[in-house]
């Protein structure tokens, strides 16, 4: 019991620390929020402008919603991925990595704290963007299965937490450029997951790759739920796949991180600042 209290306390240490950091870097948070809103609006306006560009009659509302789901889901998953994968990069930048790694805290507890914060932060961020974008467009969500959409998002978070853990190894192994390398993973996922277009338009040789990305399943499920009003039962195959990927990705991420940590301790890479 005492051990559990210690682990909960330690997990909360990361949540509270990150919250304090967000509070102190509020200027950056405002800039980041503005950027995210402008980005979401720019992409969503592509839907509104397609008729004018092509000169052909299309279902603009459907396209707007299609792009909006892609933008918001991608934003949320990216925030979760960034928060988890920047676990090391942040501490290197602040110079606190040795202190945190010397503390009597399991890496699992460390990750739990970091990921809980990332989920709350990601949901709040995405909700604000949705609220602002909704002011610009007449969004018809009367047929949408919002609960099902939410379930897809939560299930998708698990696999992105696992992927984030794997990516967080890069700044541990490559102190100078590791943080930038994580962006390559994000860019590849963006390409193969059908964030702004159906994956069916990708070349045949890329099709198997689209099935490797958990974001593909999140987006397919979300669009079924929000655009087509698919019932929760119809979403179960997507949810099942996401849960399986998450259940594999999180332990795998932890195991890879543990190995990388041992390597860093053997080679002295914890000390070096990026």
């Amino acid at each position: 019991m005492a051990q559990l209290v210690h682990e909960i306390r330690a997990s909360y240490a990361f949540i509270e620390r990150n919250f304090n950091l967000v509070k102190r870097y509020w200027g950056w948070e405002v800039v980041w929020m503005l950027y995210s809103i402008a980005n979401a609006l720019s992409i969503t306006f592509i839907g509104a402008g397609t008729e004018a560009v092509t000169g052909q009659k299309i279902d603009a509302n459907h396209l707007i919603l299609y792009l909006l789901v892609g933008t918001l889901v991608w934003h949320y998953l990216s925030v979760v991925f960034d928060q988890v994968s920047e676990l090391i990069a942040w501490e290197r930048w602040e110079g606190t990595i040795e202190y945190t790694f010397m503390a009597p805290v399991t890496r699992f507890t460390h990750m739990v704290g970091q990921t809980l914060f990332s989920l709350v932060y990601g949901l709040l961020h995405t909700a604000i963007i949705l609220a602002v974008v909704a002011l610009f467009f007449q969004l018809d969500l009367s047929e949408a299965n919002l609960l099902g959409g939410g379930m897809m998002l939560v299930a998708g978070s698990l696999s992105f937490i696992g992927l984030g853990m794997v990516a967080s190894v890069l700044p541990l192994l490559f102190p100078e450029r590791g943080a930038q390398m994580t962006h390559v993973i994000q860019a590849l996922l963006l390409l193969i997951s059908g964030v702004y277009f159906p994956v069916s338009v990708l070349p045949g040789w890329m099709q198997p790759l689209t099935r490797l990305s958990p974001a593909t399943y999140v987006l397919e499920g979300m669009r079924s739920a929000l655009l087509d009003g698919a019932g929760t039962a119809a979403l179960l195959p997507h949810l099942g796949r996401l849960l399986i990927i998450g259940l594999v990705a999180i332990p795998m991420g932890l195991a890879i991180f543990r190995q990388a940590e041992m390597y860093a301790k053997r080679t002295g890479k914890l000390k070096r600042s990026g």
Partner: protein
Amino acid sequence: MTHRSQIALDVSSVSKMFLKSEGVRWPWKRNGNGRSTVMAVNDVSLRIRRGEVFGILGPNGSGKSTLVRCISTLLVPDEGVITVFGHDVREEEMAVKRLINRVSVEASFFKKLTPMENLLYGARLYGVNAGEARERAVEILIRLGLKKDAIYRPMEEMSRGMQQKVAAARAFLTQPILLLLDEPTTGLDPRSKREVQDFLRELREKHDATILLTTHDMQEADALCDRIAILDEGRIVALDTPSGLKARVPGSNGHEPTLEDVFMELTGKKLVEDE
């Protein structure tokens, strides 16, 4: 083994080597291309008794910090065994972490956060209750000479000396039974240095702490340490009480020998070469 063991720290034949990059590494060339090795710690053995203040003196690059990192589980030694109150740092990492804390020469903090926020973060990681931590943090910081309003201002607004005091407070807050102090008073003015040193004495007397102190400051080592090891190029060249070390060299010009004289006699170098 229990924490009641009389041997606080046992370092046995520990060595640590690093690869050092030299120029460009080409992947198609053979091993060793663009790299050389540096022996940071070379077959070091020492034993620290419970309640002892043990000093390690040595110039920059002598291996002091590497040895402290090995003890504090941040580096894995290539050879040898380190135990803290009977717990092997490799095999029982978590048990060792619960018993130690470290103050490094760089006061590493979240600089936008206040000392209180940084200390609370540290305290929670070590399982200290937040209410208790808040009270003790204020007590320790004031005892170390910080003004109360500074406790709630961002660390980045503080001088390096003040930051170093907060680093010391962060370590003291978790009440470690083995405290690893890696040049804790470097950069402090004489008054601050004395405040930290007085607090260390108090910690030892009242809280039964064992202290490993690395320093360049010979007066500090002389005043605080029960025994001192002199480290040069990763090797221990002498280990004795301060008076025992000084007795090894003859006095000159009618003066008692100092630890600096001892170091020069044993290694042919000055202790502080680049300061």
